[in-house]
């Protein structure tokens, strides 16, 4: 048994010539031999793709447990001699200090999540539910900024933050999130809020709720899936961000995890593969962890909005 009908109507095997009208009453039936072969070959193809996709990551995890005297050019996934030394060494390699980097990354990511969720939800509510002058023009601007290359704003933003004396602080990485600069999330939430039944708003209005009340009591609780997707993607993007910290955080005390990893390059060339891969594994572990917990939500977010 290899083919599983996804819905209650079993898809008729190709070429069997079943009349469409007969389909809804098709009883569960044994798949033909040809169908089994086709399904098996599809799985074979997918497993090959799966191997290519996952092998590099599994190899890196394996390498992070590999003692320094084992070669790092081997195909094997698991080291002959398992060791945790790389994690101990990498955590404070040379002048690097990953305790600090993880705390810094966490603080920035947490602030970014709060900022993005609040500011994007506020804007999305206005676009999805309220009527106001220039609404169409402003919403067109949301869509236009979706495609705006960030390079156009990094130089002037750097000049601005430099004049505000924000260099070497986390402000350039967090304050913009409170101003809904990620148009993607505004768009995502607008699309979601539009699917909510308007009758609830009207009922709340008759009960005396103002717009803020409707937003807080009706729209926000019902939008938790979209808010969750926004929070997850914000976390992943902020945690992974390299260019932002590279521009704004020069002082090693302020570094994020991504800058710490990059520090291996400056400190050692690339000879210290073990500690490097140990820290690289830790750097992507929160992302993979969050993904495994919330993958259904994330994937629906991608499917409905095209987020990367």
């Amino acid at each position, binding site marked *: 048994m290899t*083919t599983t*009908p*996804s819905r209650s109507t079993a*898809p008729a095997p190709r070429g069997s010539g079943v009349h469409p009208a007969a389909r809804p009453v098709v009883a569960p039936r044994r798949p033909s031999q040809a169908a089994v072969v086709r399904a098996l070959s599809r*799985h074979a193809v*997918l497993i090959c793709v*799966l191997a290519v*996709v996952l092998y*590099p*990551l599994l*190899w890196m995890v394996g*390498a992070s447990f590999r003692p320094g005297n084992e*070669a*790092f*050019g081997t*195909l094997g996934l698991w080291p002959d001699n398992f060791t945790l030394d790389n994690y101990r060494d990498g955590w404070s390699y040379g002048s690097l200090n990953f305790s600090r980097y993880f705390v810094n990354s966490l603080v920035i990511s947490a602030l970014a999540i709060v900022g993005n969720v609040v*500011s*994007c939800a*506020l*804007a999305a*509510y206005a676009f999805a539910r*309220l*009527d*106001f002058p220039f609404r*169409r023009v*402003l*919403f067109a601007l949301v*869509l236009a*900024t979706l*495609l*705006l*290359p960030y*390079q156009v*704003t990094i130089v*002037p933003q*750097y*000049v601005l933050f430099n004049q505000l004396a924000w260099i070497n602080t986390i402000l350039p990485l967090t304050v913009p999130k*409170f*101003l809904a*600069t990620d148009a993607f999330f505004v768009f995502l939430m607008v699309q979601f809020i*539009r699917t909510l039944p308007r009758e609830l708003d*009207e009922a709340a209005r008759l009960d005396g709720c103002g*717009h803020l009340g409707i937003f807080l009591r009706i729209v926000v609780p019902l939008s938790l899936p979209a808010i969750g997707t926004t929070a997850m993607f914000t976390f992943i993007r902020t945690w992974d961000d*390299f260019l932002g910290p*590279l521009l704004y955080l020069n002082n090693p005390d302020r570094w994020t995890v991504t800058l710490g*990893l990059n520090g291996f390059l400056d400190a050692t060339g*690339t000879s210290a*593969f073990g500690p490097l891969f140990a*820290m*690289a594994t830790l*750097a*992507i572990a929160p992302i*993979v962890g969050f*993904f*495994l917990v919330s*993958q*259904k939500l994330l*994937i629906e977010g991608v499917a*409905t*909005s095209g987020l990367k």
Partner: protein
Amino acid sequence: MSVREGARAGGGGVGPAVARGVAGDPQEASVPAAPHTSSRRRREALAAYAFLTPWLVGLVGLTLGPMLYSLYLSFTRYNLLSPPQWSGLANYQAMLADPRLQDSIRVTVVYVALAVPGILVVSLLVALVLARGMRFLPMYRAAFYLPSLIGASVAVSFLWRQLFAGDGVFNALLGVFGLEGRTWIGDPDTALLTLVALSVWTFGSPMIIFLAGLRQVPRDLYEAAEMDGAGPVRRFTSVTLPLISPLIFFNVLLTTVNSFQAFTPAYVISGGTGGPANSTLFYTLYLYQRGFAELDMGYASAMAWLLLVVLAVFTAVMFATSRFWVYYGDER
């Protein structure tokens, strides 16, 4: 009844709302039905702008204002330490005669031209296989999507550096088949290809979009096409392709725009230099070097505007040609 008419009767194009939103009318009319008094109207508008305040501040202060300032800077010499000095078209003239810029344009165009078709073909093929209603589909889908989340990270870029190093894993794999390896990262002929491979490895995100669309294609269309005598190829070109063309449009647009802006892998793999021999000098990396290593903010701004114009023209061409090849069903 032709297949295409069947698709029309079957109820329209398929795809995530954003694909239609971006490609088509951005906003369906959703003005509240209740009759408005003018004071209520005014209150609603005031409330709306209160809700929009953070976004408006960001739009003006961090997007539109900086864009204009960047345009101004592109006509100046500016090193951040002394005030900008008007220099007319000097930056743009310098760009015409800058061999490193030309290298970076060539590298970026080659990268985009290889990575975008690579990602789209792989993602569509995998989505077509998955769309048949597989067992373990959620597991496959999640695993294929994972690289999209971490493909631009420093960690994975370092991993790539090691995989394709002279004594790296890829050469070990070639050795199993008795093939001679090389230092893929260190060789100007192949360094860019490793970045293309990294990009294609992150095919999961467009794949999920294709998959969501393919699973919405009504089955009776395939059956109708089959009864009309269409073979598998014909069914693909006459049913599947038209119905998912909004998604192809969307994925081509986004993947291309994103690929032009890739930065981290090239920075990490080349140690920030764009080497060897400028072979991984992405446009964005060169812009970063000019702006933030050499503090040549005017030149970097001019480069940013060239990129903006190129992407705007590309986007405009995509939209202008979309009505010839993107099928929107009953929507218009």
